[in-house]
């Protein structure tokens, strides 16, 4: 396990480097001079000259990448074009909010998906199974930004139970005032993982139930509850892995839901950056989210291997 961990972590390093290279290139695929992409149009000649020198914009691309990377690893993502504040500060609060939203959605999706998928797999062909399969397809196919609007119409406009936008006043706190802002976006975002987890868990449970050791256990006269425990134990690694990866996808993909609910996370930040053509914010946020995704992938992989040693040998 130790060697495997080392190997896996080492493999993540070139990936992380390549990912930052792609993010670095974002400034260069933006139309026009990169300097226009990272400095506001009214920047003084001295600033332009200074930044040009600092980031080596007159040097070849590999050198520029090196200089940029040196800034980034020190937490210097440049300044936002829109408000001249360091991109890092903008991201800190936003990333926390997005993590809150994405993890709530992933957890909710995991619970719903495991229960539905487990029941569907256990009672294959039944009414519950058909419902669960239908729910899974709908969950994967629904444009969640539209679903968010529908929720707002039902629960905010018509019923008036929950707020339509924002994350509550001031900093986040675990009280009803703030939690009620989280409910609609989290439920909306949870539809995708719920659908995927339902599908996965159903497949895994069906497969486990068809294996020989289950027949043996049944033959031994094991009761349903004990049998269920065996199934859960065997289904857990796959389900947890799916959910871990989903958390990463949700953090990176929450931009649409955050737009609908004006949730002040990284998605909103990206959205504003796109509108204001604020490339440093776009670049920094993309990089941070992608790095979180890489780290999550790595963690999921290690946890899964720890739970199920067969993977290591494969």
């Amino acid at each position, binding site marked *: 396990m130790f060697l495997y961990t080392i190997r*896996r972590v080492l*493999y993540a390093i070139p*990936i*992380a480097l*390549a*990912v930052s290279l*792609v*993010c670095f290139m*974002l*400034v260069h*695929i*933006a*139309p026009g001079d990169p300097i226009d992409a990272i400095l506001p149009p009214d920047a003084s000649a001295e600033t332009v000259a200074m930044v040009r020198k600092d980031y080596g914009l007159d040097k070849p691309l590999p050198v520029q990448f090196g200089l940029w990377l040196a800034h980034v690893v020190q937490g210097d993502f440049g300044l936002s074009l829109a408000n001249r504040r360091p991109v890092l500060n903008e991201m800190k609060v936003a990333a926390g909010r997005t993590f809150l939203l994405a993890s709530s959605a992933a957890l909710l999706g995991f619970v719903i998906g495991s229960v539905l998928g487990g029941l569907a797999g256990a009672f294959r062909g039944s009414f519950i199974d058909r419902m669960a399969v239908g729910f899974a*397809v*709908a969950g*994967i*196919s*629904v*444009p*969640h*930004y*539209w679903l968010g*609007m*529908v929720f*707002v*119409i039902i629960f905010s*406009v018509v019923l008036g139970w929950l707020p339509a936008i924002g994350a509550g006043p001031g900093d986040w706190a675990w009280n009803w005032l703030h939690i009620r802002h989280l409910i609609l976006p989290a439920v909306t975002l949870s539809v995708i993982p719920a659908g995927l987890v339902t599908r996965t868990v159903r497949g895994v449970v069906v497969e486990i139930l068809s294996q020989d050791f289950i027949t043996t256990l049944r033959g031994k006269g094991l009761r349903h509850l004990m049998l269920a425990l065996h199934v859960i134990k065997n289904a857990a690694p*796959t389900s947890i*892995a*799916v959910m871990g*990866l989903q958390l*990463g*996808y949700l*953090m*990176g*993909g929450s*931009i*649409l839901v955050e*737009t*609908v609910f004006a949730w002040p996370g990284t998605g909103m930040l*990206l*959205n504003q*950056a*796109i*509108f204001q*053509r604020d*490339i440093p914010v*776009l*670049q920094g946020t*993309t990089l941070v*989210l*992608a790095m979180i*995704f*890489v780290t999550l*992938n790595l963690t*999921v*992989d290690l946890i*899964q291997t720890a739970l199920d040693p067969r*993977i290591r040998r*494969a």
Partner: protein
Amino acid sequence: MKSVATLTATIADVRPAQEPQRAGYWREVGRRLLRDRLTMVCLSILLLMALAMICAPLLSPYDPLQGSMIRRLKPVGTPGHWLGTDELGRDMFARLIYGGRLSWFVGITPVAIAFVIGSGLGITAGFFGGWVNMMIMRITDVFYAFPSVLLAVAISGALGPGIDNAIIAMTMVFIPMMIRVSESVTAGTRNLDYVEAARSTGAGALTVVRVHILPNVLGPIFVYATTLVSVSMILASGLSFIGLGVKPPQPEWGLMLNTLRTAIYTQPLLATLPGVSIFITSICFNLASDGLRTAMDVRA
């Protein structure tokens, strides 16, 4: 390493069916599809939608771009505008059927381009193995290290709004997925007996690929590509929804959904219509591709 690969692409793990006997196989696939009621319903709905888009000028007398300040936000069921009018007084039905043209175009094109490029690279990687495989697959890994929505948003955000930029961004998202699937399917057929036999009789690489590999891998790869269409439609409209992709005043479902957001307090039903169109399209594509997979006997 392996587990991430298998997980990030749960649907990607498709294997080719036994070597199909050409004519008989496709007749069988057609027969199975016809018997699959759900798939037929979905295909019919999609066909109807496509027809409506093609015949849009015949179905609606209204210009999707021409608004009127005096008939803004008319509710669904208004005489003359049976699906109502939008926030600029443009006929909703006209905008939905004209909008479908762009939504479908931006949704399907990236998958089609990625199918060609991705399967080309993937088959190359899978067939030749060695350092060619290494090069192609490691680059693919890098793009897999981004959540797909984020990658699409970042690329099209950097390039700026516009249909072509959205298509480029989404193609970049789908190419790695197509490469992975094509590579794994091709690697599976590479060492089959008849391929070995062909090689040992002196057939060149190109001949082996053309005669023995392609007919066996294109089916499963195509099935996988169809599963991406649904995702692609949601993503395409999503990009327009956040201000990338299609620009106003062009009608496009995602963009319409965004501009109608202001109307949710006054005309909630009307405001959700473009989303309903996206949902129906995406679920039909999803179910139809499931049906196709079953009919073509591609193991998932």
